[in-house]
């Protein structure tokens, strides 16, 4: 048990340290543009990606750095992409909000809220004809639950029993607005019933819980049972984007969030397991060292070549 928990902790620290480094580099200048960090939400990506097969297709949102990392995309090309370098995972064409790395089963972030859900249906549909046994996972936030494309995708997947897992990261804010103010019934998982698919509200700050439910959903999907909706309850420890003044937060809210956030919780659990504090802290230190090295390497890489700006538009 402790071993798995340590592995989860390490996976989450790699993401958090990455995001914290991104925040620094954005402040210092090497990273420009709009950046959406997933600090506080790491457990969902870590738990889910742990049970994905290489052939499965993963579609994330613009808050997707953690999903790319959890799926196994190497760190240096991710940093390089954020800095517009030639060795960026998309050669500088994607940026923070539009990573894609299909060779790692990461079929991309998406900057359009809910835009990836119909695409995931197609990836699953293709699997029906190519013998790959592929399932598709599409990730989106609570705000996307009010997008038409997501509803179309849920019905499309249900109607055709497509192997799709719809993962809703409910961090309680649709961008800057409380989701509770934008819906009548705030249990978003309940909507699954309308499409005739299983829906569960789960603890998104516990990688083990996410792992359990995603594995279950994938099993159903692979057996021809169709899609599942998982509403993973979580919270951002940071703004919607870097620069978000977060004036929508209530007094004491951040303190409560910090007590529930996945890394602090897992640390407590490991201590309770009897794992020495030094061993736990070494995980963080190791992740930070790995991140520093990757960022430093990316900083020395050449910028994307302007001569290539028009390439790869057409076949």
């Amino acid at each position: 048990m402790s071993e798995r928990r340590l592995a989860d902790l390490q996976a989450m620290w790699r993401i958090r340290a990455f995001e914290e480094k991104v925040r620094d580099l954005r402040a210092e200048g090497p990273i420009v543009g709009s950046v959406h960090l997933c600090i506080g939400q790491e457990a969902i990506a870590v738990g889910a990606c742990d049970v994905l097969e290489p052939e499965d297709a993963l579609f994330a949102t613009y808050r997707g750095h953690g999903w790319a990392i959890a799926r196994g995309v190497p760190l240096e090309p991710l940093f390089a992409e954020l800095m517009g370098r030639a060795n960026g995972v998309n050669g500088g064409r994607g940026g923070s909000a539009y990573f894609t790395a299909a060779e790692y089963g990461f079929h991309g972030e998406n900057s359009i809220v809910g835009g990836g859900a119909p695409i995931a249906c197609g990836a699953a549909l293709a699997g029906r004809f190519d013998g790959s046994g592929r399932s598709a996972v599409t990730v989106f936030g609570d705000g996307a639950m009010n997008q038409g494309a997501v509803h179309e995708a849920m019905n499309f997947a249900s109607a055709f029993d497509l192997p799709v897992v719809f993962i809703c990261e409910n961090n309680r804010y649709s961008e800057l607005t409380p989701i509770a103010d934008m819906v009548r019934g705030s249990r978003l998982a309940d909507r699954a019933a309308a499409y005739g698919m299983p829906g569960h509200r789960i603890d998104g700050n516990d990688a083990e819980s996410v792992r359990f439910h995603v594995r279950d959903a994938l099993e159903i999907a692979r057996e021809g049972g169709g899609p599942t909706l998982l509403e993973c309850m979580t919270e951002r420890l940071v703004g919607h984007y870097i620069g978000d003044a977060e004036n929508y937060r209530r007094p004491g809210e951040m303190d409560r969030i910090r007590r529930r956030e996945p890394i602090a919780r897992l640390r407590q659990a490991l201590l309770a397991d009897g794992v020495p504090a030094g061993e736990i802290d070494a995980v963080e230190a190791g992740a930070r060292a790995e991140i520093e090295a990757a960022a430093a390497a990316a900083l020395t890489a050449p910028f994307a070549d302007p001569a290539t700006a028009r390439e790869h538009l057409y076949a």
Partner: protein
Amino acid sequence: MPDTSPTPETRKLSYGEAVNAALHRLMEELPETLVYGEDVGVPGGVFGVTRGLRKQHGDRAFDTPISESAILGSAVGAAMMGRRPIVEIMWADFSLVALDQIVNQAANVRYVSGGRLRAPLTIRTQQGNAPGACAQHSQCLEALFLHVPGLRVCMPSTPQDAYDLLVTAVHSDDPVLVIENRTLYFGAKEEVVVGGPVLPMGGVRERHAGSDATVVTWGSITHRAVEAAEALAREGIGLHVIETPWLNPFDTGTVIASARRTGRLAVVHEANVTGGFGAEVVARVAGAGVTLQAPPIRVGAPDVRMPAAPTLAQVLVPDADRIAGEVRALVRGGSR
């Protein structure tokens, strides 16, 4: 790639039948194709264009919910994974509820992935006015899609092109929009060579010879432009009518060469003029430094919504008389 194309043969086909023949061929020769959309499977399409595909190819041809985002988005996803979906959007107007999947998603796949992913999907749709059609079933939207880098766009007006362009589109590794026209589906049967080689994209069709003015046109209104050219020929005015069934890629060079030769340019399209692709054609000719004897003209619908009543629509959509009148004035000078 092994040559799996059947031996070419000539058949008498209407425009709609030609589309159907192309779909049958494509599903036969490309096992990765899928054909789907609203009512295209068991019913065979509201215009009968996908008839027989379900029977012949089973699950590879199927009906979908009325969900354009799901249809187009799933086509993007399936294409990324190596399928070659051919999806139908019943009316071009309906694509507007799912423009995200075309513009933000399909058009970006190849570029953003640096060519490591591709989206070889074909979107078949049809557009334009027909008697009684309402304002949400009449629009000509090609200019919207031509503004989007990463998409290919074509508009066949004959049974042969309906066949050939679709075959080319589906064999392409780019997202291609094939805009058909429902007023042509049930037109006269013509001899169509089916089973021929896959032709490259692009090129023009010279529909009428003449040296007094160049008329550039595309889509079903091509037939009216040719009718106008025939009428003007009887008056001694010779029009060089160039149909450009491929709008992206667009054969600018041929148009410029013709305009340089005739010294006059008219662009005729059914779409309304402001922001229409006709403006782009005029700009390209002007930008090439072609000296014209008269200012170029654009003949199209005025910037009005499209009314349902035939008597109202008639005065808005250019007919052969109006095209002839405007081009006559271009050639002879004076008022139109």
